[in-house]
């Protein structure tokens, strides 16, 4: 099928009224949690995983994806109006966005952010559609050795980009791998780490693990860090940017889209890193860099375009290679697997309606977001008045009921307590629970391909360095770890507060 008939197929799926409704629900929820500090896309997607069992695959993936890119939009609203980033990816937008708000130009800042994001989202979506077929054709030729090396490189790259140092990053990913290995061995059927518990034979339930690690530990941390206090919001003012704003921001949006699209594909870089990098690019090429920090419209346009472009292009490795480059993408991959869909080079052929439906729905979702974010902005700001103790009680109740309904036995709820404690310990040790999740998802993938590659090569471990593509991946992973110990990335990482 040619490109346009595939897009038409996607249209059919995405424009189905039920899927359209789930797309709208996803982006609405995404905007809401993007606005609310203390509830992010990771928690929300984790909480909704148990629910997505009951939905058809298209609807649930469209819903979860909407939450993910919707949150990048919503995060900018609080950054601009309250100087409080709802998401790490919009932290940079605070710098100039809030200054603009203070000058009574919040409306213009919001409009530039929304329109820039829409443009970037459109480009990102097109990139997935265009990159899909050729990339999948290359990836189809990967053997087990190449896949094992790719997973190895992806894990090292993400671990190196996370705050807290390379040792802790790699260590916590390995910890996740160990938990991911629990259950029956796919090649021999032997039970591992099940300790005679029947419920563990199929492995640790991904949704329970995600909810426990993120929701419980996050709630405890937020309660302990104390009062959010009341927030004062700036007046919104006119939503129309001036002609000067347009003139200054469109090249910034273009550059931001480029930076974001590129960084979104790389494992570990993520949305936060891309918005930060886009801001630095704008500042360094500006004729009057001293305007930055005092309400420069480019300082809003570029990072917002960048994080939205990155949120779209980060689907490329996840969907086409089956290798998630970020924790949220690991959750998305888990959602696919719950529905028995294995993302990877074959997905486009075997699940064409789902793949192209998702892509078209992401574009429609981006359109919904502009409509949701500009005229309805006042509604979202009111969300900030919801006190945290109402929010966390709801999140906790939702988590318990959602996990309980997956098995109709309290076993999973008790497991939730266990992973809550584990999540708390990880946080206390300064280890990233997100990397743990990534290890959990990638571990079994690595094991299967590693063992298969060893079997094919008759036990010769040199196969990983003798095959050129595999060697390139391994060297790439090691190079990033080496680079991470140099000052440049370390500084960028600390300032960007990786997500």
């Amino acid at each position, binding site marked *: 099928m040619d490109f346009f008939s595939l897009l038409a197929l996607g249209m059919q799926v995405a424009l189905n009224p039920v899927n359209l409704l789930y797309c709208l629900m996803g982006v609405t929820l995404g905007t809401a949690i993007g606005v609310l500090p203390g509830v992010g896309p990771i928690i929300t997607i984790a909480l909704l995983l148990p629910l997505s069992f009951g939905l058809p695959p298209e609807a649930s993936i469209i819903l979860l994806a909407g939450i993910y890119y919707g949150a990048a939009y919503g995060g900018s609203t609080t950054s601009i109006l309250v100087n409080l980033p709802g998401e790490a990816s919009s932290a940079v937008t605070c710098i100039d966005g809030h200054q603009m708000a203070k000058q009574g130009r919040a409306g213009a800042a919001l409009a530039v952010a929304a329109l820039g994001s829409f443009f970037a989202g459109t480009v990102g979506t097109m990139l997935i559609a265009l990159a899909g077929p050729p990339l999948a054709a290359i990836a189809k030729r990967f053997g087990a050795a190449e896949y094992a090396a790719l997973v190895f490189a992806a894990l090292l790259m993400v671990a190196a980009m996370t705050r807290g140092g390379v040792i802790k990053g790699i260590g916590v990913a*390995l910890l996740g791998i160990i938990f991911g290995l629990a259950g029956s061995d796919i090649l021999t059927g032997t039970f591992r780490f099940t300790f005679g518990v029947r419920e563990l034979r199929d492995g640790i339930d991904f949704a329970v693990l995600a909810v426990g690690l993120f929701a*419980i530990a996050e709630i405890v941390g937020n*309660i302990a860090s104390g009062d959010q206090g009341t927030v004062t919001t700036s007046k919104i003012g006119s939503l129309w940017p001036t002609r000067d704003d347009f003139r200054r921001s469109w090249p910034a949006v273009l550059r931001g889209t480029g930076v974001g699209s590129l960084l979104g594909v790389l494992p570990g870089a993520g949305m936060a890193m891309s918005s930060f990098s886009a801001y630095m690019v704008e500042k360094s090429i500006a004729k009057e860099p001293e305007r930055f920090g005092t309400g420069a419209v480019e300082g809003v346009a570029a990072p917002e375009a960048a994080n939205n472009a990155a949120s779209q292009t980060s689907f490329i490795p996840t969907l086409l290679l089956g290798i998630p480059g970020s924790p949220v993408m690991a959750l998305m991959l888990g959602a696919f697997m719950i529905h028995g869909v294995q993302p990877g080079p074959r997905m486009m052929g075997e699940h064409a309606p789902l793949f192209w439906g998702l892509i078209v729905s992401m574009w429609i979702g981006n359109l919904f977001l502009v409509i949701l974010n500009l005229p309805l902005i006042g509604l979202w700001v009111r969300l900030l008045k919801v006190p945290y103790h109402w929010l966390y009680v*709801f999140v906790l109740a939702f988590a*318990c009921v959602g996990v309980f309904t997956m098995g109709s036995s309290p076993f999973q709820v008790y497991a939730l307590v266990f992973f809550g404690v584990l999540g*708390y310990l990880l946080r206390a040790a300064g280890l990233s629970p997100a990397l743990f999740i990534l290890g959990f998802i990638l571990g079994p993938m690595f094991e299967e391909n590693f*063992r298969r590659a060893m079997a094919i090569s008759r*036990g010769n471990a040199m196969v990983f360095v003798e095959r050129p593509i595999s060697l390139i991946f391994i060297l790439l992973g090691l190079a990033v770890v080496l680079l991470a110990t140099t000052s440049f990335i370390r500084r960028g990482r600390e300032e960007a507060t990786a997500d």
Partner: protein
Amino acid sequence: MTINSELLAALLFLVFGAAAVLLGWGYGLGTPSRLGTGAMPVLVGGVLCVLGIAQFANATKAARARQRLPRAFSRAEVRPLLLVLGAVLAFAALVIPAGLIPALVVLIAIAWSAQSGGQRWEIAGAMVTVIALIIAIFKLGLGLPIRLFPAGF
């Protein structure tokens, strides 16, 4: 010596790494061309142990240099942690015998006291809102068969 976060990370790596190696060994390593069930746990656990030792060395070096490292467990977190976990445990214990609504009432009552911020009267409002939303989503929206009250009601 108080436990700081660097030391806790080292301990976690060592404990889980050693457990993976020991258990994995029992599952059998296999041969290089037919790797056994235990090969990956032993490999990953072994690397984790090495990282744990390196992390331990870093932590003790920092302690000797009298760096002030953040404490792993802050006192402000103990109370919310216990109450939040207690609320989940109570829900798990009650949901089958007592039904969804009583289990949620107890969960909210315990979880509410984790943060000192809320007003007394608000708890009733929070209970009604949260329970209504949960029933609307799970029971009415998704049509899941959950009993709301104890059997016999």
